[in-house]
């Protein structure tokens, strides 16, 4: 494992007077599942937005496989192989499931304006490319068991299914780094269990490195290789799930001041 896969050093960003992130530094090794935890408003999603290029940090650097990406545009970062999902679902609500996931293939396709306008017959460049990439998407649909919603507009689908389609769309990009922003939020136990298996599968079978934000402590502790806890935009502790779980400040942030007969473990 190399540890220069994703390296974040001394990241600062503030909005007006609010210091959203202060001095965040960590590096990820290829192939691991790395989780970021913290209470609401701690700056977890802000961190994701910095990595995916939606926010530009005030100071500090983000390097992905040796390339500085903190000043790059979101679409350029996607081309480097970083895909993400969103906490509040950001699907293309008028497209069907297939078309939504097809957008994940955007950077791998070459049909431009002219070849797009002249899709005449199944042997035209655009049609052949559509067919090839739809086959690829179909494999992802099979993996995540989305066959029965394949041709439905996504806007009307259940919440848990929409979350899965977001994951499928991110996978279609063939990322090397996948950012998952609360993939289990709002899911029931059964759906959560499935999601945990899929995340493990994505790591093991597809070899994708995963950076995860999640509130469900059990899930985080089960699947993470390492955990970073942040609070008020500042790093609290970084280590193995067990160590982070035992950290005093983490417990304070999550369950308040420890009482005499307080719960013995977080979650």
């Amino acid at each position: 494992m190399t540890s220069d896969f994703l390296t974040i050093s001394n990241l600062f960003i503030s909005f007006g007077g609010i210091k959203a992130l202060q001095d965040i530094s960590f590096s990820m090794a290829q192939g691991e599942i790395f989780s970021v935890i913290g209470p609401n408003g701690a700056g977890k999603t802000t961190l994701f937005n910095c990595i995916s290029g939606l926010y530009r940090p005030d100071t500090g650097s983000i390097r992905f496989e040796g390339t500085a990406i903190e000043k790059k545009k979101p679409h350029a970062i996607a081309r480097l192989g970083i895909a993400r999902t969103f906490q509040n679902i950001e699907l293309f609500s008028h497209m069907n499931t297939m078309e939504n996931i097809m957008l994940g293939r955007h950077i791998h396709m070459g049909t431009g304006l002219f070849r797009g306008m002249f899709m005449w017959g199944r042997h035209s460049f655009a049609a052949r490319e559509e067919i090839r990439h739809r086959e690829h998407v179909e494999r992802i649909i099979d993996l995540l068991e989305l066959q029965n919603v394949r041709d439905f507009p996504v806007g009307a689908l259940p919440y848990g299914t929409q979350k899965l389609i977001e994951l499928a769309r991110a996978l279609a990009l063939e990322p090397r780094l996948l950012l998952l922003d609360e993939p289990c939020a709002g899911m029931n136990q059964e759906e959560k269990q499935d999601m945990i298996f899929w995340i493990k599968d994505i790591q093991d079978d597809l070899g994708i490195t995963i950076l995860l934000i999640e509130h469900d402590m059990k899930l985080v502790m089960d699947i993470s290789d390492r955990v970073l806890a942040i609070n008020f935009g500042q790093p609290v502790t970084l280590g193995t799930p067990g160590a982070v779980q035992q950290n005093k400040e983490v417990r304070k942030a999550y369950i308040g001041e420890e009482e005499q007969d307080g719960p013995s473990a977080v979650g």
Partner: protein
Amino acid sequence: MDMKRGYYEDVQLVTSPVVFFWLVVLLVTLLLFPFVVSNYYVYVANYIAINIIVAAGLNLLVGYTGQISLGHAGFFAIGAYGTVILMAKAGMPFLLALPCAGLVAAGFGFLLGLPALRLEGPYLAIATLGFGLTITQVIGRMTLFGGREGLHAPDLVIGPWAVDTDRQFYFLLIGMTVLLLLGMRSLIKTRVGRAFIAIRDADIAAQTMGVNIVFYKTLAFAVSAFYAGIGGGLYAFVLRFIEPEIFTLMMSIMFLAMVVVGGLGSLMGPVVGAGLLCWLDLKLRNILNIPFLGDWLETLSRSWFSITGVSNIQYIVFGSIMVAIMLFEPLGLYGVWLRTKQYWRTWPF
């Protein structure tokens, strides 16, 4: 629903023998149409076809990419003047001058698309409105464009074919309209069109999936302007004479109305929208000639409006019809089609 057997079925035009049959019927009807109706209706069809081209282009911008333009009369004017000047002053043949003028319009569309990156909704509407008004002012004041006197369109000759009647022009127009609509459909079903729709539905997600929204937003403006420019270039030969006064703000608004009345973000929406509104526009000009209703409206307007009110009756009726359509079918005429289709699919339940 039929089972799909291949991925090409997701994107192909002719999905079943039934669709093929109706497409053939449509084409044959279009080809026979000018032989069975009077000259006037051929002229009406030409007028509608041109508006369909512009509305289809505007729909790409408004319906699919989620931007707005109140300046399409400007691109329309650029296309019309561009074609006429390239033919008359640069001696280009029509089939070269028309796409060139379209590309000039697309260039202006690209330029207008740049400020549009930072503007949304009402702000973008005003910026594009300003563009449309500026174009007519500039054209009206330059001698190259004939100033206020306007320009006469040169004779239209394509190779050995002298296109000098509405009926002959009809075939040229129908060919181009069908071609441009097929191009639009194909574009929407493939990578670039998907990127447009993605920007409309969730621009942040589109960016993080690798869509360069600066590029695609300006591209949408350019393609939309190209369609308007082609429409304008053809319009010059329907009128045979162009002057700045034709390309008014009202024209831009009518283009937008066609797209909205027809149904935003649907392929056939602009076609039926342009068809209906052009037809109404031409028909309502003679509203006072309709037996009984005309007399009644005339009496009404004489007793309730000023004497000039009579000529405004057509706009009042026109406006009322538009309000009624939007009130009862917010999705536009496309919504009616969707519900009809749904009804027959589930019939008799």
